């Protein structure tokens, strides 16, 4: 602690002579924190790998139901993402453009899915949903749209706040573009980062959601992992690890593809993405930005 305080004090001294030495000394405590955090996160992973053994991994793909479970989860992720974007992008744009006064109200409304436990939501929905929806797993996609709303809304809201929407829309309008063209050519390209962050959060949410899928009696990937655990603990743990990596790779893929070409515009889009995400999460957990 004292060392940290001293390092901070040194860093604050604006001395050109000191700066080289200070620069060398500050990573020390950062590395310590990184190391501690790394241990905290990696030990369980290591333990899981050790428990499952590397030989269990190929077995995962041969297990009954694996392909259909992951296939369903990916389809649900895709459908949820598409519906979320189609619904939320125009809504957030409209609120920013025409109803800026109800922004606070919107924030309150969109936080509801987090306040209400998923189990309450799904039990209620299963009671009232019409038969044709109950008979397909895609009712889950509709539920996930609701669950993803707080994340999607906040990502998009943050993205639009960083952009002079009114002037841009008027400029585009004045040059002859109607609202659909303006949305497509001017607004969406400039909130791509925010949309990307909405997509990433939505996909992560869908791939990890257990409660609703389980109660709706459909075998998504998380449900499959839990079911399978009863058959083979080793393979189940291997599947969990695999799920973690698959999700991670998928998210990296989305970020990479989504921010392609952004660099030439100097957007620094991946960095922006993480800012939008931390802002979003900070807002949800009520932390100051």
């Amino acid at each position, binding site marked *: 602690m004292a060392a940290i305080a001293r390092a901070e004090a040194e860093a604050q001294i604006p001395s050109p002579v000191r700066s080289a030495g200070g620069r060398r000394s500050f990573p020390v405590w950062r590395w310590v924190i990184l190391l501690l955090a790394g241990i905290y996160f990696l030990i369980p992973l290591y333990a899981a790998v050790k428990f499952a053994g590397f030989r269990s991994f190929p077995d995962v793909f041969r297990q009954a139901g694996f392909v259909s479970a992951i296939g369903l989860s990916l389809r649900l992720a895709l459908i949820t993402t598409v519906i979320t974007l189609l619904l939320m992008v125009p809504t957030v744009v409209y609120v920013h453009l025409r109803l800026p006064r109800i922004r606070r109200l919107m924030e309150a409304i969109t936080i509801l899915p987090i306040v209400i436990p998923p189990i309450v939501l799904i039990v209620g929905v299963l009671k009232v949903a019409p038969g044709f929806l109950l008979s397909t797993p895609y009712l889950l996609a509709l539920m996930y749209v609701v669950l993803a709303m707080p994340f999607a809304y906040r990502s998009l809201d943050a993205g639009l706040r960083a952009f002079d929407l009114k*002037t841009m829309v*008027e400029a585009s309008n*004045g*040059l*002859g*573009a109607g609202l659909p063209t303006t949305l497509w*050519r*001017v607004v969406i390209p400039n909130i791509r980062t925010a949309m990307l962050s909405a997509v990433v959060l939505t996909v992560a949410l869908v791939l990890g959601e257990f409660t609703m899928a389980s109660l709706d009696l459909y075998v998504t990937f998380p449900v499959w992992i839990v079911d399978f655990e009863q058959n083979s603990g080793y393979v189940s743990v291997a599947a969990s690890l695999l799920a973690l990596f698959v999700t991670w790779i998928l998210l990296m893929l989305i970020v990479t593809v989504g921010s392609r070409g952004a660099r030439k*515009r*100097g957007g620094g889009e991946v960095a922006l993405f993480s800012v939008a995400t931390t802002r979003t999460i900070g807002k949800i957990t009520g932390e100051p930005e």
Partner: protein
Amino acid sequence: MTTNTAAGTATGLGPAGGGAGAPVAMQGLSRSFGAVRALDGLTLDIAPGELVALLGPSGCGKTTALRIVAGFEFADSGTVTVDGRDIAPIPAARRDMGMVFQSYSLFPNMSALDNVGFGLRLRKTSGADRARRAAALLDMVGLSGQARQYPHQLSGGQQQRVALARALAIEPRVLLLDEPLSALDAKVRLQLREQIRTLQQRLGTTTLFVTHDQQEALSMADRVGVMKDGRLEQIATPSELYSTPATAFVAEFVGTMNRLPGTYRGGDEVTVLGLDVPVHGDHPNVAAGEADVLVRPEGLTVEAVAGGNGIVTDRTFLGSLTRVSVLLSGDVAVKVDKSSTAAADLTPGTSVQVGVIPGGPVLIAEPRR
């Protein structure tokens, strides 16, 4: 379109066929926002190819007027006609007006060239033709080297020049400038003033220019409309506005003005500094008796006289002229312009006699309380 532009001027950008130089007429425009009356019966005609500046303090309604013409705002009553046609039913996207905004409005996801070409793209101009014309426009605003750059790589002045090129690219019937220079620093502002004016005259585009900067309005516009409380106080050429302001508000808003206590004799005569001088302009609210008299610094004389009516407090050297600040008896501070050679001996503390040149513009107003 291709043949049209090919037959244009050297840059391929002559005045648009029928587009440029449209007359604009605003008739009795009124607009309220809740209890605030932003526009109160504004009537203004702009001749084809003319640049009219609307000048006034913030909240005087000038921007509302411009936004009504653009189609971003609607009038409660009154009409706007372009080329004799009422434009109220036409949505903003189909009004063919080029607008430059106060805030930077370039689309961040497009290069300078694509920004300029945006309006052409919407008009289904072919890719090659669009690129050629956008490049010619960028060249016209002196930014041909920046065509491939994105807005964040351009300075504020460059962004506004691209925005101007973008507005002109659609060969607008009317060019609308909403304080386009306000966000820029002083030096860039001066350069851009000239550039906008030169381009506007060359293309002959009817232009409405909104500003709160009198220098900008006076130096760029054919005519300047001074607005106050949603109404036009006076519209005149810059020199008329300065030399024969119609009201005390205009007189004090444009240029430097002295306020001296005087006595209004009724009719067109006022006594100030012991002299009877004729009054110019409208003064409907001023009753005979005590009145404030408005005289420009060049409308006053100042001579060193022992035991005169004032004392020099300060001098500002302006080149050939020197502006002498004098404190008159009764705690009235005035500024008087005098040739610098003649003002050499008027050091602070000198007793002076200040008088009025009878021929100059003299206005009266109700005394301030």
